[in-house]
C-alpha cells in the first residue's frame, strides 16, 4: 500500500506549487511498470486531499503503454507487465517506457 505514501508526496508537491489556490484538476501519468496502481491512487487521493486546497479536484490519470526494445534482435514491442521477454525469446530487453510515475500538471481556479 505504498500508493498512499506516493499520493501524499503528490499532494505535497502540488501544494508547494499552488499554495492556497484552489486546485480543480490534477493530471498524472502512471505507466504499467511503475509499481503503482492507478485505482489505488484514485482511492487514496480523496483521503489524502481532504482538508487541503486539492479537496474535490478531479484526478486524471494518463496510462501510457509499456514499450521495450530487444537488445538481441532490435524489435520494439509492447510490455504489459514486468516479464521482459522479447517474442524472439531473448530476455535482454531495454524498457523504453511504462515506468512513468509523474505529476504532469495541475489546474487551479
Amino acid at each position, binding site marked *: 500500500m505504498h500508493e498512499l*505514501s506516493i499520493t501524499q508526496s503528490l499532494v*505535497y*508537491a502540488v501544494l508547494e506549487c*499552488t499554495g492556497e489556490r484552489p486546485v480543480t484538476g490534477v493530471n498524472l501519468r502512471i505507466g504499467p511498470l511503475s*509499481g503503482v496502481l492507478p485505482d489505488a491512487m484514485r482511492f487514496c487521493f480523496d483521503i489524502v486531499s481532504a482538508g487541503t486546497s486539492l479537496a474535490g479536484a478531479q484526478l486524471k490519470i494518463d496510462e501510457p503503454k509499456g514499450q521495450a526494445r530487444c537488445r538481441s534482435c532490435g524489435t520494439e514491442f509492447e510490455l504489459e507487465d514486468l516479464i*521482459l521477454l522479447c517474442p524472439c525469446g531473448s530476455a535482454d*530487453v531495454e524498457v523504453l517506457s511504462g515506468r512513468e510515475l*509523474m*505529476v504532469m500538471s495541475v489546474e*487551479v481556479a
Partner: protein
Amino acid sequence: MCTTCGCGDETNTRVSTLDGTQPILEHQHPHEHEHPHPHEHPHTHEHPHTHEHQPVTITLEQNLLAKNDLLAARNRGWLAGRGIRALNVMSSPGAGKTTLLVRTLTDLGGQLQAGVIEGDQETSLDADRIRAVGRPVIQINTGAGCHLDADMLQRGLDALDPQPGSTVFVENVGNLVCPALFDLGETAKVVIISVTEGDDKPQKYPHMFMAADLVIVNKSDLLPYVDFDVDDCLRQIRQINPRADFLVLSATTGDGLAAWYDWLDGSTSRSDSLTESLSDAH
C-alpha cells in the same frame, strides 16, 4: 498519516544510538511542517490573456518519487566520497537476512570492516544479534512503516558514522513489495529468498527481483524437504532481470557461503562499475 504504508505516523520512526540504549525521538518529518516560505511559484503568475473565471494549468512534470530519489542521490555521493559500500539487503520476513549477516560478520572477522543498519517496525532484537558479534549497529524502528527510505538511511548513516572504505549492510524491513520502489542510494541491492517460501516469488514480486543486483537462495539445507525448484526460480529471475548474480547457500550450515564471500570480495573492487550499472539500468 504514514507516508510509507499509510497505516501509522512516520514521526514514529526511531533511530538508535550505537550503544543501543537511547532511541532518539525523531524530529518532525520535513514533509509535515507548515511550509515556511509559501512563495508564489515563479511560473504561476496570471497569464495576461487568461480570463479570471477560467482555470489555469500549471505544468509540473515532476516524478512522484523525486524527493526520495534526490535524498538517495545525496546518500550515494556521501558514500562514494568516503569509499563506503552500502548493500541494501531485502527479503520477506524470516528469509534469513540477519542470520546471514551474523554468520558473515563472524566468519570474515577482521577481513571485512563492516557496520550494520537494521530496519524493523519494532524492537532491537536484530541489532542485539549484530552487537553480540562485536560490530557497530544502528537500529531503525519504522513504527508502522513498511520500508526504509533514503531519509531514514541518511539518519542511520549519521548515527553509525562508518569508517571510510568500509562496508555497511542495510537490512531493510522484511517485505518484498514496498522496499523495491524506494532507492536508498545504496551501492547494490541484495535480495534473499528462502526455499521454504516457494520458488514462485520472482514472478509474484517482479519489482523486487528486477531491482536486484544479487539474488541469494537461502536455507538450501532444507531443499530435500520442500518443493522448491532452484533452476525454475533462476529461470523466472532471468526473465525479469538478466543481469543479477545468483547464489544458493545455507547461512545455517555454511554451504555455499564461499561464493557469497567471493561476491563480497569482488564487489569491493567493482563498486564503481556496480554503481554505473545501477544508473544504466534505471
